[in-house]
């Protein structure tokens, strides 16, 4: 498969932040995830759980709750404002002050007409949802103590509010509290502390289910205000509750990292009277489960351990299919690493700063598999703190290492880097063209003379760079009418082409010489996760969220022969079963038939000259091939050469000197940085 000197980079201390809230939109099959740093991510459950959009966070804007209203996404947090997000421009659209102190929860009624928010001062505030904004309507009766959780009755006439030590039921019309359900405090020491009702669920048959800090899940009769049943689930807190659409199953997330399922089951076959029975327990987290969503087929949970876990309910999905596999989403589905191929520099993007590292050097010779002695250690050249409150949403380093650029929601910054010997000086470029204001993706051309920035409405701004100034050249636009943001930019090596992909699954190719649209690749149903243009043949390789690979000839404007053959024969089932998307595609200049791509758990070299693997052949055969005699090896080898010796990959890139840079971030290192979980008695300890 070819031999490389590998830079095994483990100094990227990427630390995802904890998941605070999730909201699932069953109509569009989108899941919105809010993290502790205020970032909001949108996953498309229809498209292999692909992370479509990331709205960067902001200092001091922790999102405590999320809520979908149709296709609109609202969030609220402890800063006391309600935010509606602009999912096309990946930024908050507007904020509304609720004037009730920190907001703990936000909930929309099933009709989609009103938003209710629960505030620290004990008020439930009603907002009317208008076409372009929301408007405060009224307060429900103010109670003593904060409102922690809210749940509308499906009819929209009543609302249940979880508070300190109690649950209140309000009549929405009159705003009066009709019932007051007292929640028992925990036993022992915790008797003196107030119990917090972290989650409440109001079902259509007036049953209320609550989860509280005493570890109980309680089932109440909402019409009479009486307690029906108590399930003691944990010694610690029940932090989140979620109900399935058909109201036959409720899940509860606990501080122990478990998710407990309750099902509405009749005691005997054929009888009508049903009962809430505790059934399964899922343990996929090491820390608090703060956020839960119950989709039709799966339990989605997230929490302090920063991973999003999709646990399919095996009674709802077909067994032994891709759908029935457990998914853990730990890393973002886009690259946070930028690699200057010629200069041997790496740029790491964090939410609040950028780090520039120079790769180490070695002159040792070794056999394959050896680790070489390091002559010069890798060094951190520079750390660049961002300005302002907004978090960094994208960054780029030019291939020559002379330019660096990053963007936040509000501004773009461009720096000129000057290397003399080992020192690097950095100069900020002032007077950027005003078209560079709000961008989602940045990219330099391969000769570092141009900067491409994806802007609003799927357009791309081209800026020419010179030693002294940067000049706006053109805005590339297409006519498909899509307003979705461009999330991938890929210029060709020769500087003639620029390929862009947006979350509407469109791939457009522009001719940079003519500064106009060259062609549009036929739209495939799954979102592209990585695109690249071949340096010599000018074929566009696109890899999609459903793991399909296409090769499109830019000259002929049609799929290549190889791509058709691949589609005809179909990809290997094991390839399709991988659960992380390919985030990067590069080519080997030494061998134009090699395509290098990687996901989190493997990197792969596709050799287009070799036959494609049949369904029955062994896909991961590199280790066995090594032990075979040459003739047999040739007979058994196939186009997909997969290496799994590096795990938890964030970037695999080929440098100018034919060495491979592999950036790893082991999950264990992330786990080690997390705070200690709640203490649990383990048997035999």
């Amino acid at each position, binding site marked *: 498969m070819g031999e490389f000197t590998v830079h095994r980079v483990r100094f990227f201390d990427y630390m995802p932040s904890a998941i605070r809230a999730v909201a699932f939109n069953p109509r569009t099959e989108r899941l919105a995830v809010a993290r502790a740093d205020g970032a909001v991510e949108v996953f498309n459950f229809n498209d292999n759980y692909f992370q479509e959009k990331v709205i960067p966070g902001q200092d001091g804007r922790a999102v405590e709750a999320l809520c979908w209203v149709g296709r609109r996404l609202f969030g609220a947090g402890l800063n006391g404002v309600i935010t509606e997000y602009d999912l096309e421009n990946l930024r908050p659209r507007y904020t509304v002050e609720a004037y009730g102190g920190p907001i703990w929860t936000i909930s929309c009624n099933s009709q989609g007409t009103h938003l209710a928010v629960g505030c620290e001062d004990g008020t439930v505030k009603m907002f009317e949802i208008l076409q372009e904004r929301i408007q405060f309507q009224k307060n429900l009766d103010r109670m003593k103590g904060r409102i922690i959780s809210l749940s509308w009755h499906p009819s929209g006439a009543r609302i249940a509010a979880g508070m300190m030590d109690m649950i209140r039921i309000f009549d929405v019309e009159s705003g009066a509290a009709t019932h007051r359900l007292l929640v028992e405090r925990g036993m022992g020491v915790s008797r003196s502390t107030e119990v917090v009702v972290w989650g409440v669920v109001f079902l259509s048959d007036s049953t209320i289910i609550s989860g509280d800090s005493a570890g109980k899940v309680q089932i109440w009769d909402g019409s009479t205000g009486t307690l029906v049943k108590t399930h003691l689930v944990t010694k610690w807190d029940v932090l989140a509750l979620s109900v399935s659409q058909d109201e036959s199953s409720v899940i509860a997330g606990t501080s122990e990292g478990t998710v407990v399922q309750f*099902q509405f089951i009749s*005691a005997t076959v054929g009888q009508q009277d049903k009962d809430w029975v505790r059934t399964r327990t899922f343990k996929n987290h090491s820390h608090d489960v703060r956020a839960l969503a119950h989709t039709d087929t799966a339990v989605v949970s997230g929490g302090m351990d920063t991973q999003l876990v999709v646990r399919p309910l095996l*009674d709802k999905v077909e067994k032994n299919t891709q759908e029935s596999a457990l998914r853990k989403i730990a890393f973002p589905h886009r690259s946070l690493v930028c690699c200057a191929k010629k200069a041997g520099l790496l740029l790491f993007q964090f939410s609040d700063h950028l780090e520039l590292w120079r790769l180490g050097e070695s002159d040792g010779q070794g056999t394959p598999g050896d680790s070489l002695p390091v002559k010069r250690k890798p060094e951190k050249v520079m750390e660049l703190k961002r300005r302002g409150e907004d978090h960094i949403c994208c960054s780029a380093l030019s291939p020559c290492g002379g330019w660096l650029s990053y963007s936040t929601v509000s501004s773009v910054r461009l720096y000129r880097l000057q290397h003399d010997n080992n020192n690097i000086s950095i100069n900020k470029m002032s007077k950027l063209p005003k078209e560079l204001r709000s961008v989602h993706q940045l990219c330099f051309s391969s000769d570092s003379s141009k900067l491409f920035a994806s802007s609003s409405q799927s357009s791309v701004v081209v800026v020419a760079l010179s030693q002294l100034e940067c000049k706006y050249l053109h805005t590339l636009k297409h006519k498909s009418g899509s307003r979705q943001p461009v999330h991938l930019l890929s210029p060709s090596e020769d500087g003639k082409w620029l390929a862009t992909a947006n979350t509407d699954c469109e791939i457009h190719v522009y001719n940079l010489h003519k500064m106009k649209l060259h062609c549009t690749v036929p739209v495939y149903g799954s979102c592209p996760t990585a695109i690249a243009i071949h340096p010599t043949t000018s074929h566009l390789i696109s890899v999609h969220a459903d793991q399909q690979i296409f090769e499109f000839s830019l000259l002929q404007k049609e799929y290549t022969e190889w791509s058709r053959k691949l589609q005809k024969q179909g990809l290997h089932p094991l390839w399709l079963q991988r659960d992380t998307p390919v985030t990067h595609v590069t080519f080997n200049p030494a061998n134009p038939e090699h395509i290098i791509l990687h996901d989190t758990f493997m990197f792969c070299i596709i050799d287009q000259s070799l036959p494609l693997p049949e369904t029955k052949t062994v896909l991961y055969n590199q280790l066995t091939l090594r032990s075979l005699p040459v003739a047999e090896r040739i007979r058994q080898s196939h186009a997909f050469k997969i290496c799994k010796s590096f795990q938890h990959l964030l970037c695999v890139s080929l440098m100018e000197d034919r060495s491979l840079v592999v950036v790893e971030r082991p999950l264990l290192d992330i786990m080690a940085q997390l705070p200690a979980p709640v203490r649990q008695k383990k048997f035999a300890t």
Partner: protein
Amino acid sequence: MVEHADIRVVHRGGSIINFRQPVVTNDSRFLLCASGECVKVFSTSTEECIHNLQGHTDLVTGVLLRPSNHLQVYSCSADGTVRLWDFTDGILIKTYVIGYPICSLYASAKHEGVIFIITPKLTDKRSELFQLVAVHLPQSGDQLVETRELSAVLSNVSSKPAATAFGQGGEYLASVKGLQMEVYFFRKEKSYTFSLKEDNKKGGRNTFTCVACHPKDDCIATGHEDGKIRLWRNFNHKKEYTYSTLHWHHSAVSSLCFTPEGTNLLSGGVESVLVQWRYNQESQRDFLPRLGAAITHIAVSPDGALFCTSHSDNKISIIQSCVKVSAVIQGLVKGESVKTDLIVDPRSKALVLNGKPGHLQFYSLHRDKLLYNLDIVQQEYIHELGLDQFEVVKAAFDASGSCLATVEERQQKGAELEINLKLWAFDEQTQSFVLNTTISTPHDARITAMCFRHDADCQTTMLVSTSQDGHFKAWQLAAAAHTEEGPSWSCDFVGAYHSLVPKCCCFSADGSLLAVSFQEVVTVWSPASWELLTTLSQPPGAIRDLCFGRLSCSKYLLGTTDSSLLCCWNLLTCSLEWSTSMDVSLLLSDPLSENMVAFCCESGCTDLFVFKPSEPRPLFSQKAVCSGRVTHAVFAPREEMLESCEESSQWLNRSQLYFLTQHMDLMTFITKVEEDRLMASSKQLVIDDSVAMTPFYLLLGKHRQEQQEDQDAVSSQSSERAPLPHSSVAIKELLQTPAHVLPSTTFLCSMFLQSLLIPVTDNREEKKHAEEEMESEKEEEDSSEEEMESSASRPEQASGSGLAAELAAPTLTKAQSRELRRLKKVDHSWLSELLDS
């Protein structure tokens, strides 16, 4: 050599009672459990065995209350029959012949007249495939019924009874095997299969071990190898089934049981803790810990008041409402090996052997009951696999039973062997053994044999122990000089012979000689002077067993060697008297006679020879006593001597020979005479604690007692003269069978009449006597309602009434005269009672 047919090898005493789940009767008064070839009925309050339901000819594999009649019980056996019993009276009602070995038995209220059995698949017997078969029991009055209507319900089920359960009184059944559970709905005739993965990621083994069904809800509880309990619901769907998991046990769950109302779930395992889970509130659970040994079965009485747990140490605990162990029925504890050998305690005549870990058990063979356990090791036993703990390996009593010597050892991996020799003295006040001396490391290596000097008149007690370290040591009880404490044991002499390893030791009956075998050499020592008197040798082959002759044969010393030789030396001439070639696995002498017993192993079977050392011919021999080697046997003295006139069985007169087979079954030899006597006594046994203590009962009881005394007086003189009217079998059966199990009267009538005719034809010449007999028979029938009516008054009455009958016969009909007589008799007895008082 003649085979003696009148001596049989039987199971008697010490049988297994934890083989299958026990059954508690509806009124919670009796507990039934399968035990060997019979079903034992215990009283739950007194722990006594009330009677045995005997009749099966192979292992009983299941006991089950008949759902439609709570006074009857089914039992199934590997002999291919299902028997229906009346357990209160111990009567066999019916025998259904199935024809295939049965592994377990189920029935439910919803399936009237149908029982479910698990049998091996018919196709090939070798394969371990079993099927669940529904058996339609034919309605027939006959005692012995062949069943033909068999229909397979489930194929490929587990043979374990706990792996199948009926739910909701027979709506469905759940059966688990390996990693699969199959639920079969009778109404829909549809089955659903649920399977688990072999291993979960955390290394738990998901294999099913047992199953239980909730009595009311659709909920199935399954126990698993890794200690988890799963509660399955919604299992009438192929896909949308769901289960919740309960986990407390750290090892496999061996038994699960719901209480009759379904409010609680009981589970047990090797932890020997009974766990009670609240149904639907599983986080609340109660524990009953320290039950002594691993729980193998759990049963609940139908009213839910009593729980019964069977334990691996052959014990059944009866627990009242999960808080208190109210009774313990303890069988003979049999571990994997009996290291101490079988010993008889001379004082209590109890059988002594290893019991609970670290204990010696004293088991009364006569009463078939555990007397007590003596804690030897005196350390807490930890229930965990692979833990090396102290074990009692040797024990010996002196002749009077006042001294007990025990050896315990522990071999930890990589560590030295730890040995303790403990000497115990019997304390008259507490009636138990008290530790006198502990000698740690009495020898440097494992102790091979140990014996006391059997000498009544000698003042000092002496113990000799031989060890693999090449020495034998004599220990003596002597008063310590400088302390006021009582006498303690100390080493008196250390002997060795040519640095050979001693194997066994033996004292002569009078205690004047000690024989110690050193490989192929037998050395004879004088314990008084510790002088080596002589050596005897018969190479090749090391000595395996040594035994002095007793009483008239005390001049002989017998030994067996590894090279299949039985030698008899004459100690007076110091020469070999005789020898014979046989592979003796065990040589034993009867302490009460000069008889000796040799168990010989030949081609996988064990033969038995009983002989006197002085006589050339064996007294008794039996081929193929059992399969495998017999290495443990003991002579247990009888409580009263048998008077057997037959020569071949005379050796059993004074003591009884018990031996342990390869499969740890305790067997004994029984003579025909004894067997007959036992049968007779069991027939006469009448349990009568069913009568309430009403004033009427007191009155009646008093009257009866008097009559009993009368009877004793009368019977002593009139036993030959006027034997009890031996009525025909039919009548006897008629009278003893409870009314509710009798066939219809029309059916009985002809049988009854026929039975009336037979004696007349038989005893034609003694017509008068016969008539009398007949009358008394009738009378017996008359008085069937008052069975207590003694027969003492019968002879006189019989003669009187016989006269009356003769007189009245022409004028009165039979029924009238019977009525008359009954009235007369009743009046008479009450009158006499009144007059007396």
